[in-house]
């Protein structure tokens, strides 16, 4: 549906939407002006912790498995440390650094332009498919490739096809091989199939993925097992488990961002006349948060604050909790839904949608919540929501972070 048709939204006048945009801009300005040494200390501490965990995990695996007595506990402990390190690296550190959340520190070692993360997808391609495509066109069918990742049917508006009967299986495969799914994401298999992809660009991207993927595989499945000597098999299996754990965890967290009930999808007419304030509104209506303690939020890369993250993708993640208080107050003030629930419920709803939408629409019912009762606007005439011209369209959002080739990547070409 286009945003103009969203019931929760049409009760707002154009002026009210713009006012909401100004209030969100003010929240951004507040945080930007108050970034300080505590924020810098947070990310530096997080990076040290993560690297410490990774080193401890690797060493435990190599040394601890050598004796028969300590083999099993060492594998369990080493694998857990390594899995934890990979989760922290991908979620709270890599994803957020690549959004440019820490660029303000003017520290070339913690900067979106040259950060490379511990997963198969090259950072440059991630910054394009995620920072730009997903964050700019969030939940717009046909534009945002993250709606079902080109594999799953996640919106009732998407046409059903018998292929989707296999959806529960595709979903399980996607979850367990998540890092490889993400690695191929920016290639855009659909466009390759239709022959729309520039072959030169495709070759370049494939080369990049092969190079990165080869190094990742060598590290976890050749070099470290080899260093474990006779216990190579234990290390290999444990490393695979750590990668699997990271895959399942990041898959689940990411599916809680836009697929629980209440997170809306939009059609491309919405993009045509969208102002900055309406872009904000689309982010709020299209995203879902989950509740949890500080540890859960850190392990989720602060994506439990998905709404806040989509409003302000480049503000430091450790500030999202305080931003959330203000955003929630704004939602109350403007009577806009703020989708939130416990992690298990949010994921449960996403999973239910996956199962239901494997079938044609007429066989299932929609779980989207009924729009809230409109309070005092019931008798008002419909608002004028005229189309604007090209010149009035939203410019590319500056806060999404750069996505073109980084210097480090160009050196390889």
């Amino acid at each position: 549906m286009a945003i103009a048709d969203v019931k929760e939204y049409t009760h707002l006048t154009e002026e009210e939407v713009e006012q909401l945009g100004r209030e969100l801009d003010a929240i951004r300005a507040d945080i930007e002006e108050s970034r300080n040494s505590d924020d810098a200390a947070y990310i530096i501490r997080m990076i040290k912790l993560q690297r410490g965990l990774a080193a401890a995990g690797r060493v435990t695996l190599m040394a601890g498995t050598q004796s028969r007595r300590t083999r099993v506990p060492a594998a369990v402990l080493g694998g857990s440390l390594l899995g934890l390190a990979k989760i922290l690296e991908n979620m709270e550190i890599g994803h957020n650094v690549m959004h440019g959340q820490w660029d303000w520190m003017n520290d070339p070692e913690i900067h979106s332009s040259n950060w490379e993360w511990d997963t198969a997808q090259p950072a440059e391609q991630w910054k394009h498919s995620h920072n730009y495509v997903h964050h700019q066109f969030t939940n717009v069918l046909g534009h945002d490739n993250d709606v079902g990742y080109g594999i799953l049917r996640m919106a009732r508006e998407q046409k059903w096809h018998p292929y989707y009967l296999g959806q529960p299986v595709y979903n399980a495969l996607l979850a367990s091989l998540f890092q490889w799914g993400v690695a191929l994401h920016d290639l855009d298999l659909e466009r390759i199939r239709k022959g729309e992809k520039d072959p030169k660009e495709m070759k370049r991207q494939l080369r990049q993925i092969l190079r990165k993927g080869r190094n990742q595989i060598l590290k976890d499945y050749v070099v470290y097992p080899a260093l474990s000597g006779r216990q190579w098999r234990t290390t290999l299996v444990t490393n695979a488990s750590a990668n699997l754990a990271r895959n399942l965890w990041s898959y689940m967290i990411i599916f809680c961002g836009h697929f629980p009930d209440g997170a809306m999808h939009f059609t491309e007419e919405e993009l045509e006349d969208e102002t900055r304030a309406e872009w904000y509104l689309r982010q709020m209506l299209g995203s879902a948060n989950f509740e949890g303690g500080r540890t859960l939020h850190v392990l989720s890369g602060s994506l439990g604050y998905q709404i806040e993250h989509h409003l302000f993708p480049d503000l430091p993640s450790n500030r999202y909790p305080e931003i959330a208080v203000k955003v929630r107050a704004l939602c109350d003030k403007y009577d806009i839904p703020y989708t939130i629930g416990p992690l298990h419920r949010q994921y449960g709803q996403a999973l239910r949608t996956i199962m239901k939408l494997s079938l044609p629409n007429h066989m299932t019912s929609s779980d989207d919540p009924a729009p809230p009762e409109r309070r005092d606007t019931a008798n008002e005439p419909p608002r004028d929501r005229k189309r604007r011209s090209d010149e009035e369209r939203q410019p590319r959002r500056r806060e999404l972070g750069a996505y073109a080739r980084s210097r480090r990547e160009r050196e390889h070409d």
Partner: protein
Amino acid sequence: MTTIPWERVRRAGSKLTTPLHPDDYLSLLNPLWSSRELRGRIEKVVPETEDAATLVIRPGWGWHYEHRPGQYVGIGVQVEGRFQWRSYSVSSPPRRDGRTISITVRAMPEGLLSAHLVNGLEPGTIVRLAKPEGDFVMPDPPPERLLFLVGGSGITPVMAMLRTLDRRGTMPDVVLHYSSTTPERMIFRDELAALAEKHESFTFHQLHTDLDGMLDLQELDAVCDDWHGRETWACGPGPMLDAVTEHWESVDLEERLHVERFSLELGGEGGEGGTVTFRNSSKTVEADGATTILEAGEQAGVGMPYGCRMGICHTCTVTLVSGTLRDLRSGDEFGQPNEPVQTCVTAAVGDCTLDI
């Protein structure tokens, strides 16, 4: 015995740490064990005067102790979470077997960072460093007769030259004229007096301008009657250097004069302005001919790197993809494709595109 090249060990190690570098882990053990960025640790902060201090810095991996006497280095310090960069002359003499370098800093009334460096820096603090730069240097071998004209904290590059001459034990015929408001504010006063004592060929003139007024260059003969015949280095406040330059030009001796300025002087003409495009972020901004590319980028919300903001530290350098830029100091134009340009001192001449 053959040694395995360290670089090869590190490259092999990177198979274990990919996508990170081994240095990213080693620097957890010791912050100086990384050559990804030049780093240093503050070993000592030695007060020189009430408002000046010498920072003794132990550089980390990747540092070559090969600065030439008189050069400056960039130092990046994290203030409120953000790295701020400034450049300061190295005051210690170059030693290949050295373990530390020294810079001497005076806290400026308006300079938040210089005040932080003088008063707020604890030993043990890790700072970033930028390679030595600058051509205000002592040639090797040194000329036979030299004159130094120094005002205030301009003594620091000169001190590195004097210490180098002293260390080699071959002090040529040197005259130093050093102006400072009061004796107390005179950095290195005792050391200079001791040098004058030690070397007969080194003459040290002190001028305390609060009491005796500024040096009148017309009376330079009284200080040093053969200044025409000396290779001269001048370092100090802008007005003093302007006067010195003018004086030397009036007798056609400017090629024997070396001057070091510590502030940006935009003497050249401006550009014409134009649309500046930042390629990686697709951001564009209209900039007039007086707006530097750095300022334009900041206005557009591009995370521009910067350091001294006066054209000396090169931290702000990015690659020009197309178009022409003009150096606001000299009026020189840069228009080669893929030319590295200093964004803090250049402005657009027509439309241009930068790789950031």
